[in-house]
């Protein structure tokens, strides 16, 4: 075959395809709900106008600075604990190098009150010097699984305001491996949760993690228990803890609880029957690389979790609720929540949800706004003095033809969440805008290194750190204002 003929063939193929491209409707041809035909968009044939894509240069800057800090400072010191012991005179001074211009997206307050967070800041300020341990609970959906986002904020807070340890841990290891701390259970257990696909418990007694577990005595030769081991990959602050707390209750018969540190028995206690939530705190040696807890008894108490913390400063808990939209808190037994909120000095709550609402298709999302509002009222009722920061829905994409665009309902959901939050006199942080707003997710996915997963929904671990850094800066800016207001009022 002569090349001229081959060329003609190829040329005609290209020509016919071009003609089809020009004739084909830009929005595609609808065949069924699952099938829409698309063809080349002649507008994008040679060149795509990039001026319409959101600019995420500030995000790229943060990423670069984070990578720099991670390589310089945050390389985990493997298995050593050469951290200076904090002095009792610890008064946190604001970081003078902090530049408020670094704040990509500020926190939003209800118009009448921008000092909602002051009670929390006061606690932060005094926690270490008053030898007090305070807690921040970070609830969220799969976006925060494996301690993502939380771990970074926790590290920043603990470095700045004191404290250590990974915080609250579920009674059973939940979603695969965590870099913060390693868990292993022994014996047979059964778990229940108020969210997702796990079995529900008949009386709705879940703890702070909306999750509960009980051991079942199927095999008497293995004692039920749990082992925590320090992870070499965690931040140095997380490796530093000197107290364990066990959250349990409602045991119909006595049982024996044993705590071991590095395989030697530290504490043994018979727990009498009880019909209330309980909190057992014990000091543990600083060098406990391995902590195990064992249970001996005929029937299991309801176990809600464990904490590993420093006994003063700040503890921050990662509580992922896969598949949840954050609308289940109202279904949890209030007595238990209230008890632990008070007893454990919860001083701030972060609620990061919204992503699981996006796949539902509705014209109006006020149904979600109302459900969310109901949850915020519960928090107001059981912990009236504890501020809540709602971290709203992130940008997430669907594919339209050959490009990725934001879910059509992201902004509607964001608006409902924000309204519910501000109406309840809580604080809102707009993650969607912080990311760059509409259609920013594809840029996060395609950034080098990548900041989000190929599902165009979840952040990568680096992306999660970027989100956490942006949030922390927003929070820190408010803390600075509080700090200088305080100094001025003293003067």
């Amino acid at each position, binding site marked *: 075959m002569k*090349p001229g003929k*081959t060329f003609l063939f190829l040329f*005609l193929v*290209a020509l016919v395809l071009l003609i089809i491209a020009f004739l084909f409707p830009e929005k595609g041809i609808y065949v069924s709900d699952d099938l829409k035909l698309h063809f080349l968009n002649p507008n994008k044939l040679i060149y795509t*106008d990039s001026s319409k894509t959101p600019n995420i240069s500030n995000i790229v800057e943060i990423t670069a600075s984070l990578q720099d800090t991670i390589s310089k400072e945050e390389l985990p010191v493997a298995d050593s604990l050469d951290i200076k012991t904090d002095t009792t005179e610890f008064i946190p001074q604001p970081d003078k190098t902090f530049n408020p211009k670094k704040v990509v997206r500020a926190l939003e307050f209800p118009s009448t009150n921008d000092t909602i967070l002051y009670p929390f800041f006061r606690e932060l300020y005094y926690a270490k010097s008053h030898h007090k341990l305070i807690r921040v609970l970070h609830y969220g959906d799969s976006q925060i699984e*494996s301690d993502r986002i939380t771990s970074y904020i926790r590290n920043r807070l603990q470095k700045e305001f004191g404290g250590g340890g990974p915080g609250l841990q579920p009674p059973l290891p939940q979603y695969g491996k965590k870099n913060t701390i390693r868990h292993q259970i022994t014996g047979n257990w059964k778990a229940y949760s108020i969210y997702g*696909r796990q079995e529900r418990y008949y009386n709705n007694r879940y703890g702070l993690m909306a999750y509960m577990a009980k051991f079942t005595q199927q095999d008497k030769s293995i004692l039920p228990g749990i082992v925590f081991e320090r992870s070499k990959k965690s931040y140095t602050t997380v490796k530093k803890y000197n107290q364990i707390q066990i959250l349990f209750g409602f045991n119909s018969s006595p049982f024996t609880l044993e705590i071991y540190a590095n395989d030697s028995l530290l504490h043994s206690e018979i727990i009498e029957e009880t019909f209330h939530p309980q909190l057992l705190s014990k000091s543990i040696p600083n060098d406990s690389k391995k902590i195990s807890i064992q249970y001996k008894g005929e029937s299991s108490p309801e176990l809600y979790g464990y904490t590993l913390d420093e006994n003063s400063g700040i503890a921050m808990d990662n509580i992922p609720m896969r598949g949840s939209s954050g609308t289940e808190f109202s279904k949890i037994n209030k007595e238990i929540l209230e008890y632990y909120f008070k007893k454990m000095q919860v001083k701030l709550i972060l609620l990061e949800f919204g992503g699981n609402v996006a796949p539902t298709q509705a014209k109006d999302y006020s149904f979600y706004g109302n459900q969310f509002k109901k949850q915020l009222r519960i928090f107001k009722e059981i912990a009236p003095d504890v501020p809540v920061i709602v971290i709203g829905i992130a940008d997430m994409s669907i594919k339209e033809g050959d490009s990725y665009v934001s879910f059509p309902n992201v902004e509607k959901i964001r608006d409902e969440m924000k309204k519910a939050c501000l109406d309840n006199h809580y604080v809102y942080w707009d993650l969607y805008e912080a990311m760059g707003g509409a259609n920013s997710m594809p840029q996060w996915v395609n950034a080098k290194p990548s900041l989000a997963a190929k599902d165009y929904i979840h952040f990568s671990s680096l992306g999660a750190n970027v989100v956490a850094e942006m949030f922390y800066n927003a929070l820190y800016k408010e803390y600075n204002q509080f700090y200088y207001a305080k100094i001025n009022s003293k003067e």
Partner: protein
Amino acid sequence: MTDLIQNWLSHSSDIIRALFLYNPDAPLFFTRLYFWGFFILVFGFYSAIYKFTSARNFYLFIVSIFFYYKTSGLFFLLLLFTTLACYFFGFKIHKSQSQWKRKTYLFLAVFINLTILAYFKYTYLLVDGINAILGTQIKVVDVLGELGNFMFDASFNISHIVLPAGISFYTFQAISYVVDVYKNKLDPVKKFSDFGFYVSFFPQLVAGPIVRASEFIPQMYKPYALSKAEFGYAIFLILNGLIKKIVVADYLATNFIDRVFENPALYTSLENILATFAYSLQVYCDFSGYTDIAIGTALVFGFKIPTNFNSPYKALNVGDFWKRWHISLSNWLKDYLYIPLGGNKKGVFRTEINLMLTMLLGGLWHGADIKFIIWGGLNGLGIITYKYWRKISPYENSKWLIAHFWKIFFTFSFISFTRIFFRAESIESATEMLIQMGKYTRIELIPEIIMSYALILSIMIFGFIIHWLPSRTKEIYRGWFIQMPLWLKFIVVIITVFCIYQAYSSKMQAFIYFQF
């Protein structure tokens, strides 16, 4: 239409930039429309000059260099340097009489090539290794970039070393040339542009196959010839490659595999296992699809490039697999590494060591990370274990169909398993995936998982069925296409491209939670 032309006119400078300048966000891949426009235009001019051999070779050399510039930017200078060095040493080796001189020139040529490859590909691995062992904090700086900035007042980013596309392929191709000249298998190429054309021929430049000088260079001096059947075969290969790449590989990757490998803990055991098998299909369709397109487009220009894959998942053992997978690399490693190491001529123990070394280095060739070495090592172990197993296996020569299928299934599963280390982001992530496979079974969810992944599973089944069809059956439908009159081929091409575009632009599979 007028709007469009106006839009183009108002952005004419952007359009010219998009057409002629390098854009790191839009490298010139076979799946891009730009490539096909480029290909047709280049071929159009080629059809005018194809009778003049030297003009033709020179022309293809220049367009290939432009192609590489559009893919990798200023690294085309590096490609030219490698080409020049090997061209020069080829001559030197050929002209030198004394053996030690020939050896020195060969050594220098190989050394320069491997140093360049090592600099761009393995500096990080080396520095990380040194830092890990000595506890130092050495940081990598791109000295070549710095030199460029110093000499040309340029502004290369020197904070990290960027890997030039296809460097592993063209370096190996250039090495094969000097070795073949050294072994007197080949006379050196006289014209620089001819040699440059051999090293940089654009269809196979960035992802192979690695073409041997002795196979390719003689073709450069032959007159153009393409039979009707060859034309049909070339078009068939191109379409086949596009379907493999876009419909199977890319669809499975974005909608399923990437998600699982990015965060294995989000998925149940079955999903992790499915993703592992699906990845085997993806990597095959991706790579062999790319090779099909390379072979097809090269053939349209009248050049025959050797096949690179021979239904690798039909392999009965790991050794057999490596004879069917990335054949041009396996042969290259055999001829230029395994045999020079001594091959199987130095006793059983040395053979094993040579084999293992070849597989480990072959692993390292795929990427600068310990996980690729593990992957290579596991494959080496697979080959060696089989060598012993076949001596005691009662089924080795069995004609029993079940034994035959079992061997295929077992080999395929083993290869897929080793690929966890190849694909996972890190060793930790690979371990996490393995833990997840063993632990989070959730048998009660299996029917629901199968229902929800219906489309993904159908594409997987489609891919595997096509792969496992007997070669004779494949030849039958390929024959149909080749025999078709031109007008019918034309219609088939248009319809196929339209359908491929539907896969390319299809909706994403919704995110599914199963575990809880």
